[in-house]
């Protein structure tokens, strides 16, 4: 039997709302990708996966599920566009930057963070993003991910160290951002 389209699945489960999470998903994607249109593509892709997942079984912790899927999709896009030059959006950033080169530094920083995130496990990546960007407590992250708080802290430090090792060379640049 042919699988129902996302729209059909959505129609069957109208009670499951993606909208409240849309901005969060966008934020996670943007921090990895740094491009508005690509981030919106991730939002759309995640929305479709969300609907498909909800048609089978709604995730117990929507935030954690969406974060993991959004980060994985974003990293897939990062991989697919390497090696890449700055796109028009980023060139626009360069043109409007207060200091020439600031946007280039920021784009390089973002690329390094994405590269470091690729080396992490799903759990480490999820914890790192939840803590740094979503500013969740370790206890809340532990509950959301179904892990012990001590494990969450371990994931956090490992993830942070991986990013630090990647970014070390840019520390002087950060201070000027």
């Amino acid at each position, binding site marked *: 039997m042919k699988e129902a389209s996302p729209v059909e699945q959505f129609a069957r489960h109208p009670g499951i709302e993606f909208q409240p999470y849309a901005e969060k998903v966008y934020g996670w994607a*943007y921090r990895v990708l740094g491009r508005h249109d690509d981030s919106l593509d991730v939002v*759309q892709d995640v929305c479709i996966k969300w609907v498909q997942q909800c048609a089978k079984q709604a995730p117990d912790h929507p935030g954690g599920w969406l974060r993991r899927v959004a980060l994985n999709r974003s990293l897939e896009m990062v991989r697919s566009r390497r090696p890449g030059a700055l796109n028009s959006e980023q060139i626009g950033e360069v043109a409007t930057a207060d200091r020439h080169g600031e946007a280039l530094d920021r784009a390089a920083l973002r690329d390094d963070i994405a590269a470091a995130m690729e080396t992490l496990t799903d759990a480490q990546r999820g914890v790192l993003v939840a803590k740094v960007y979503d500013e969740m407590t370790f206890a809340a992250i532990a509950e959301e991910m179904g892990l012990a708080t001590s494990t969450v802290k371990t994931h956090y430090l490992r993830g*942070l160290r991986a990013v630090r090792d990647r970014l070390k060379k840019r520390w002087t640049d950060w201070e000027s951002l």
Partner: protein
Amino acid sequence: MNCNEVELLFAEAIGDELDASHRASLHAHLAVCESCRGEFEGLSKTVTGMKTIDPPSRLSVERIGDRLVIGRSLHRSGRRMQPVLWAACRYAASVLIAFLAGYTLHARLPQVNAPQPLDSAPARSPGHHGVSFESALVSAHMHNPAGSGLATGLKILADSRR
């Protein structure tokens, strides 16, 4: 507090969840331990660096939502539709140019000794020796509505000039 004990506090300290008493102990150790201080500062800087990557603040949930719906129909399919739209525009432009060219040609050619091209052509107005462009189009349409069009009309007009 030794280095191992201090390291256990790093996550909470950097994550801003460390209580005051432990924080004091941590900073007391960091003041005298260069290795731990370097590690702590490095991790803190990493968080600072990560936080410099902010999404545009001008976006709202509603706007993202709008784009979510509109984006699927315009943004993505738009990429695929673009060549088709361009082809349609080119076709429309070529038809318009052909129409204008035909009309101009018709207006400038001498209207003498023009043969009657079609049995079904409408009657000519008094003093008009050729088949008017408009009447040729109407004739073509009446003759074959499905296949009528400007190109057909121009063909009939051209035939009428032979």
